[in-house]
């Protein structure tokens, strides 16, 4: 029994380690040591003995994919898709029901990720370390970057919209003038139809019934 549970733990840690190869060695070792200590702590303090209890413990911890994704995000790194793409896609296939939800977020992180770099990422360069004065620098920087970018993007959008509006307006006038022509032309067929209404109106002469 304990062999089995040890196997499960070893397997879990191995799977996690495989997925962390893109991290700097010390960060990788640190995380693995922490996770291993967590598992040991939980086993001792919650007297986890059976295999099912242990699997529950590992489940609460999260799949190696989920933990690795968090590790790359916190490290400000993109997940090295290439290095274990095979493993990931292989893992996705047999477990389509469970893994996808927790798995899919990582790619999505790529987007929201962007704002982080300014803040947390600069953990390498000591911007946030600017301990006490930490308050002013990061925010202003972020805002500057953000508003600057936004201004450029907004200007671009405005230009595109204006161009589109111009096209639409042009097209509108064209169709307008075309429709002006059209009635003129339709007048011809119109002259053909009038006779019909004309006949009905002449029909009223039911008074002729008199």
């Amino acid at each position, binding site marked *: 029994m304990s062999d089995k549970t040890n196997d499960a733990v070893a397997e879990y840690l191995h799977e996690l380690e495989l997925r962390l190869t893109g991290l700097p060695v010390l960060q990788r070792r640190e995380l693995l040591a922490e996770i291993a200590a967590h598992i040991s702590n939980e086993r001792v303090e919650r007297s986890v003995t059976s295999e099912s209890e242990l699997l529950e413990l590992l489940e609460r911890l999260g799949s190696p994919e989920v933990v690795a994704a968090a590790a790359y995000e916190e490290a400000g790194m993109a997940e090295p898709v290439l290095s274990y793409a095979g493993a990931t896609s292989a893992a996705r296939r047999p477990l389509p029901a469970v893994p996808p939800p927790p798995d899919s977020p990582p790619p999505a992180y790529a987007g929201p990720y962007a704002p982080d770099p300014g803040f947390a990422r600069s953990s390498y360069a000591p911007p*946030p370390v600017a301990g006490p004065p930490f308050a002013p620098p990061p925010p202003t920087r972020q805002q500057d970057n953000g508003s600057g970018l936004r201004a450029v993007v907004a200007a671009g959008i405005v230009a595109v919209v204006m161009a589109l509006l111009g096209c639409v307006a042009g097209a509108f006038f064209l169709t307008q003038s075309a429709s002006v022509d059209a009635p003129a032309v339709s007048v011809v067929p119109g002259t053909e139809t009038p006779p019909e209404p004309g006949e009905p109106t002449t029909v009223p002469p039911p008074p002729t019934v008199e």
Partner: protein
Amino acid sequence: MADVAQLSTSLRRGTLEFCVLAMVEHEDRYGTEIVRRFGEERNLAASEGTIYPLLSRLRRVGWLDSKWSESPSGPPRRYYALTDSGRSALEHFRSEWVSFRQTVDRLVGTGGA
């Protein structure tokens, strides 16, 4: 469903780390203790294993300090402590958070609740 999960992920991002800092504000705690505490909070519930990379970043940024220490029972524990810059970051977050929350409450109409 995916949107709901995405929302809580987004809300957690940027706030969870300050919950961690607050958790070690008055006394040092070891990793498993912090993780367990979060496990009890439904709204913050994330996979436990994702807290460790967060702790690692907070340490690298200099907001947390850590030291391994022997445990009376079981394996050594890594205790986390708030540093001075972590403390000022937490203070800054507190004041930012209050005005942020008030603004959102006002705009979203959740202020009366």
